[in-house]
């Protein structure tokens, strides 16, 4: 069985938001509902200045606090590594929103909670997540981390020393790995 994960190269994001809108289309989201976020950071003082955009989405943690607090089991960690919300079981209590340290969960207009799903239905048909395929700078790489021949595994092997997980100290064990400068 595949164990999905993603690499985000934070040196490459130019903050265009194509990933946000591509994802909204793929997942039929309304304009104010998004699974992708950007955090802009500025460094230095004029003229020695730089900035970066950090793309954020559900980190598909292996130790997901959202799943731990969900009273109905609607939030689940699947065997393939993907964290999903089953909307039928979600009662909209928002415990998961409070528990998620990455602030990536939203309340849908219908009342249930959602967040990035790694486009899993599309992936199961052979596709790739929409945020990855639309990006002009190629920020994201998605694939099976258990398959040593996958693009992502090869990338991880080459860049291991430059990869980190976000908020590592919380021990959430994200399956999204950030490549930093």
């Amino acid at each position, binding site marked *: 069985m595949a164990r999905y994960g993603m690499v985000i190269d934070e040196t*490459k*994001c*130019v*903050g*265009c*938001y*194509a990933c*946000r*809108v*591509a994802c*909204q*289309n*793929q997942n*039929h*989201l*309304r*304009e*104010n509902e*998004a699974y992708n976020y*950007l955090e*802009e950071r*500025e460094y*230095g*003082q*004029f*003229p020695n*200045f*730089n*900035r*970066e*955009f950090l793309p954020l989405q559900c980190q598909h943690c292996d130790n997901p606090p959202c799943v731990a607090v969900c009273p109905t089991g609607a939030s689940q960690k699947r065997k393939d590594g993907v964290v999903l919300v089953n909307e039928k079981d979600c009662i909209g209590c928002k415990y998961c929103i409070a528990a998620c340290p990455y602030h990536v969960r939203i309340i*849908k*207009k*219908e009342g249930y909670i959602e967040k990035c799903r790694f486009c899993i239905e599309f992936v199961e048909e052979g596709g790739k997540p*929409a945020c990855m*395929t*639309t*990006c*002009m*700078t*190629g920020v994201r790489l998605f694939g099976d981390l258990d398959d040593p021949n996958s693009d992502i595994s090869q990338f991880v092997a080459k860049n291991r020393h430059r990869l980190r997980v976000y908020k590592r100290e919380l021990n959430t064990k994200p399956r999204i790995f950030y490549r930093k400068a």
Partner: protein
Amino acid sequence: MQDKSLKLSRRSFLRGSALTAGALSLGLLDFQSWAKSNAAAPVRRIPTICNGCGNRCSLFAYVKNGRIWRIEGNREANGNQGVVCPKGHGYLHDLYNPNRIRSPLKRVEGKFQPISWEQAYKEIAQKINIILMENGPESVFWVNYPQPNHAYALRFMHSLGSPHYFTHGSTCYTARNAAWNFTVGKLPSNDLANSRFIMTIGRNPAGGIDLGQVRDIVKAKERGAKIIVVDPRHNETAILADEWLPIKPGTDLAFLLAMINVMVGETLYDKEFVANNTVGFQQLEDEIINYPPQWAEKICDIPAETITRVTREIARAKPYALIHRGYHGAIGAQYLNSFQTARALAIANSLLGNINRKGGIYFPESAELGELQPTHPAPAGPAGPKADGTGIPGRYPLGSYGDGISHAIPELALRGVLKCGFVYHHNPLRTNPNPQRVIAGYRKLELLVVIDPVLSETASIAHYVLPASFYLEADEAVDTKHYGKRAQVSIQRKVIAPLFDSRSGFQIIGDLAKHLGIGKYFNFTLDEANELRLKPLGVALKDLKAKGILPVGEAWKEGFGKLETPSGKVEIASSTLERLGYPAIPRWEAPLVSPDDKDPHSFRLIHGKQAIHTHAMTANQPYLMAISRRYDMIRLLINRKRAEKIGLKDGDVVKIKSLVGEGEIRVKLTEGLHPSCVWLPSGYGIFSKHLTTAYDQGLSYNDFLPTLFDPTVGHAMSSEVIVQVKKA
């Protein structure tokens, strides 16, 4: 027929999606409910092109039960290489925007009334006939933003006998094009992917999006290329760069002259290339001595050592080194010195010996579409020159006759030279400088016909508005693209049936011609015309329809051949310019206006693009505007120190005031902007009440710009404006 199929398709759409008519008008608010009830519906994938901006990228549109669901980039397209930008994804939802016009409209006593196509055409024809009789064909103009039907629009104008076909060029790129034409004979491309040293000056492909260019820059970077961004603002491309050189706006010419000074002084240029393929190097040597880096530093704020160092670095990488050919910023249409800046940029590239070289500046093999004649004889071209003076000695000799000076239309209307206009896929009331003046000019017209899917500012004052089909609803003319090493031809296809009583641009042009008695020049269907035009390229229309985009013509070959300049060589010194009374070699020329150093409230107002908006066209798109709001992007950028000096905090509201306009907007304080200027993102400031999402959100730089014409090219000089910024 049209109406019947329309009703049918609408009904089946409603049935299929289980939406009510009310919900349909709300469009994507019900995207999700639609998706749920259509989860199992079969999906169709249709190749077409995007209309989110002028790039017209190649896409596949996914359709379920007659509704657009999502799009994907076409990997075969050199221009977008399989990816799509945010505007492309967002703009498709405008198909379902409730602000769309549902039928032709006529303005009666200030209010729009629906009218049938037939009646609209009849009334338009009757009015034009009178105008033609009284004022002659030259009093009629057509203006459009580039679109695939340009050949037919031109044919239409020529059939009427008018020279007055305009593009938006004078507010965008005419200085750049003129300078490259005078120097190397035509506008080249950049071989970014193979370059080892890329410098951009006033060009930001990651913000004013060019997807292929960004991908190529990333490829070059991954191979170790150095990237330097010269821009008053830390733009989006700067995020990918090794170095950002925050130049004082309006002084790029000084920076380039100093680079040339170093190249010449230290003999860093490509001697062989210069000896064999250029004219006027001697004159350059004599002149350029006046512009050492120490001189430039005082003008452009880039330290002399930096100028010297980067010049040495770029020269070391030659010929696999380039300064981006540029676009609107700095050299396109922004300053009094834009033409000379673009000339200096072209000359600096030539000194690197990179012309038509791998990793440099190159000329893709052009693939020309075929002509309709002799099968369909063309009208005789118009006899007279354009009234805007393009190409006329003593007026705008370096102006582009083909583009015309479209921001002169209001002036020509006020003078009574132009009486009647067609505006297609364009919104000059919002995208031209000095809206008060533009409104006065366009209002003076005896007849204004606007072809648009929505009531833009310009459409709002038209006598007649003809609803153009949204790009996903109509087949249109084939068009060539010259990105990459081989030209391509692409086609816009009808992906779904029109939702409302709209027509394609191609059909509207032909319909108008028939009603104006020039129908004999439009005796062909779109398919016939497309087939004729594809013929010399050896492409069958059905293949193109199936693929969306196909390669045509020859592949690019490296090597310097005879150029399309008078000497056949790179014209470092231009005898043509000299004959016209301009310097043969670029000389320093100060910008027209400069902020007052002693006044803490005085700034130059500059502008640029955010990746999520195109001109004035996408601000009304809820998906894109949601980003503007969520990330607080509708703000004026100001240098932090300058802001603090006048008591401003991040998020404060300021009043901006220029000679012609004033407005209020919130500020964003940043270290990433040159202190002499404030920066306004373009695309906002919509004042048409019919565009409900965008209305009254932010400001446009055009609100502050006086009506200016560069004295040689005639462009708008759209950053030659000083504003007062004060806490509101």
